[in-house]
C-alpha cells in the first residue's frame, strides 16, 4: 500500500513530505556508512583485536618439520628447501662461525627472517595500544609489530628490522560481535630495514634488501588447544631466486614456566 493512501492532504504537501523523506533517507544512509568508519578511526589496534583469536600469551614452536635443519645446526653447504641464487650459495659457502664470533655477530641467525623457524618460545603482549611485542627466549630477541600508520624505520638496520602490522579481518563474514570487533582476524606484517643475517644456522644468507612478509593466524584445535600459524615469505633479490615461503606452528602454553632465555650462539 502506497504511503499517500494514508494522507488525504493536498498534492503540494505530499510533495514536500516526499522531499523531506528523501533527504532523511539519504542522511540515514550516509550515517550508516560513516558510523563504523568513524568508530574504527577512533579505536586502537588493541581494542579492535578479534575476540576469538587471542595472539597474546606464551607459544612454543613445534619442530615437526625440517627437524634436521631447525633443531640442530646442519652441515655446511646444506641448502635444501631454499631457492638460493648462485651468489647466495657462494656466500653460504664462506660461512665461518668463528669469524662471526670475532666480529661480535653471534646473532646473525637470530634476525626476523631466521628466528621464527628456530626452536623457541614466544611471549606476545601488548606493549601499548598500537604495538604487539614478541619476546623470543632463543637469543633473547624482541620483535615489535607496530600497527600505527606512519611508523618508519630510522637509524641503522637491526636484526629484527622495522615491522608494520595490520589486522586482516577479511570481508564481513556474518561472525562479527555486537561491539563491531571481528571474532576472527589475521595479522599481516611486513618487515624491512633488516641487518643482513642468516636464514639458517649454517650461514644461508639474506641481505639488507630482504623484505619479510608474514601472516599470523590463531587456530582452535579440537582438543581445546590453540595453534599460532605464521605463514612467511622472504623476498630477497640478492640471494633468492624467488620468494622463500614457509609456514610455522606454535602451540599455546598456559604460562611462562618453560620460558628459557638463552644468549645468541653462532654454532649451536
Amino acid at each position: 500500500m502506497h504511503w499517500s493512501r494514508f494522507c488525504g492532504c493536498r498534492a503540494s504537501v505530499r510533495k514536500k513530505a516526499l522531499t523531506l523523506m528523501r533527504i532523511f533517507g539519504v542522511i540515514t544512509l550516509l550515517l550508516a556508512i560513516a558510523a563504523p568508519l568513524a568508530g574504527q578511526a577512533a579505536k586502537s589496534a588493541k581494542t579492535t583485536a578479534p575476540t576469538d583469536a587471542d595472539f597474546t600469551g606464551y607459544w612454543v614452536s613445534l619442530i615437526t618439520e625440517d627437524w634436521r635443519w631447525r633443531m640442530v645446526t646442519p652441515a655446511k653447504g646444506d641448502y635444501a628447501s631454499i631457492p638460493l641464487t648462485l651468489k647466495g650459495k657462494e656466500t653460504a659457502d664462506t660461512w665461518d662461525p668463528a669469524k662471526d664470533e670475532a666480529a661480535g655477530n653471534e646473532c646473525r641467525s637470530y634476525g626476523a627472517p631466521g628466528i621464527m623457524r628456530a626452536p623457541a618460545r614466544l611471549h606476545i603482549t601488548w606493549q601499548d595500544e598500537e604495538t604487539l611485542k614478541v619476546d623470543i627466549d632463543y637469543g633473547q630477541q624482541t620483535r615489535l609489530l607496530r600497527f600505527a600508520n606512519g611508523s618508519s624505520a630510522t637509524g641503522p638496520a637491526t636484526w629484527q628490522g622495522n615491522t608494520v602490522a595490520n589486522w586482516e579481518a577479511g570481508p564481513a563474514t556474518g561472525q562479527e560481535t555486537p561491539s563491531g570487533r571481528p571474532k576472527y582476524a589475521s595479522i599481516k606484517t611486513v618487515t624491512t630495514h633488516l641487518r643482513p643475517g642468516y636464514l639458517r644456522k649454517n650461514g644461508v644468507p639474506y641481505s639488507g634488501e630482504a623484505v619479510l612478509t608474514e601472516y599470523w593466524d590463531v587456530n582452535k584445535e579440537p582438543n581445546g588447544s590453540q595453534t599460532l600459524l605464521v605463514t612467511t615469505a622472504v623476498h630477497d633479490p640478492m640471494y633468492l631466486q624467488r620468494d622463500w615461503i614457509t609456514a610455522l606452528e606454535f602451540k599455546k602454553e598456559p604460562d611462562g614456566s618453560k620460558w628459557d632465555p638463552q644468549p645468541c650462539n653462532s654454532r649451536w
Partner: protein
Amino acid sequence: MWRFGMLLLALSAVSPLLAQADLSGNWSALQHQDWMERGPGPDPADFLGTPLNEQALAKALAYSISQLSMPEHQCELYPPTYMLIGPMSLKIRAIVDPTTDKVVDWRMSGAADMAVTNVWMDGRPAPSENAPHAFEGFTTGVWEGNTLTTRTIDIKAGNLRRNGVPISDRAVITRHFTRHGNLLTVEMFVEDPVYLTEPYVMSRTFELNTAAPGADEPYHCSPEPEVARLGETGVVPHILPGENTFPEEFSKMYHLPVDVVLGGAAEMYPEFRKQLKDKYVPPDKCVRYCCGWGGGSASDEIKCIGVGFADAEHPFGRRR
C-alpha cells in the same frame, strides 16, 4: 528509496555467503620446507620430531617400502594427510547447489595417489560407525572467519609418513585452510589414539597457479606384477624386529644418536636440544640432497648436490 532499502537489505542477507574466501583454483605445492620429505621422500627410519608411540615405532621399523610394489598394495591410495606430505599440488573446486547457490562441497583433488576429498558444508551427518571406511574418509567443514576448518574421520589405515610411520583408521584429522592473497596455508592437526602420544601438527603453503590446468581425479589403477619376486609368490617385503639397520645408518650420516632418530613427542619441543648439546657435532659437509627445492633441484648454475650422493666412495654413496 523503498526499493533501494530493500536492495540493501537483500545484499546484507547474502553477504556471509559472498564474503567467505574463495578457495577454488589450482594451487602449486611449494616445497620450501621439508623438501626432502615431500620430494624424494624421507629416509628410512627418519622419525625425528614425530610423536609416535611404541606400537607405531615397531610397525614403522618393520616396514619396507617395497610393499607398495605388491599387487595387493599397488592401488592403495594415501590417507588425506598426504595432501601435506606428498609432492603433489592441490586442485579445489566449489560444488554449488543450483537451487540455493550455496557451496555444499569443497572438492579437493590433485594427487594421482590420493583420493578426492569432499568437504561437506551442508551439515550432513557422519556415516554409521559400522559403515566401511574410505581412503579419503568423511570430511565436514565450517568457516571460522576467513579460515575453513575441516574434520576428517573414517579413513583407512595407512602411512602418516612415507617411511612407514603408521596412521590408524581411528585417527581424526583437522585441517585449517587459510587464504592470504595468492597463498593458501593448510595446517593439519592429527589425533590418533592408536599410534600417537600427542597430536601431530604440520603445515604447508600452496601458491595459486593460474597458468596450469592442475591435476584431476586419481588415476584408474590396475595392479600387475612390477617385481618378479613379488608377483604371485606370497612374499611380503618386511624387516624383522631387531634387524633394521637403517637407524644406525641414518644416525651415522647425520651425527645424531640412534635413540634420537627413532622419534618421540619430546623431540618436538625446544628443550629437547639440551639432550643433544653435548652429543651433537654437525657433519663436515653436506653429501646428499643439499639444494633441492620447489619443483626439483636448484638451477644448473649452482652446481650443487641436488640428489643422491656426490661421492661414490662415500659409505652410503655406494648404495646408489
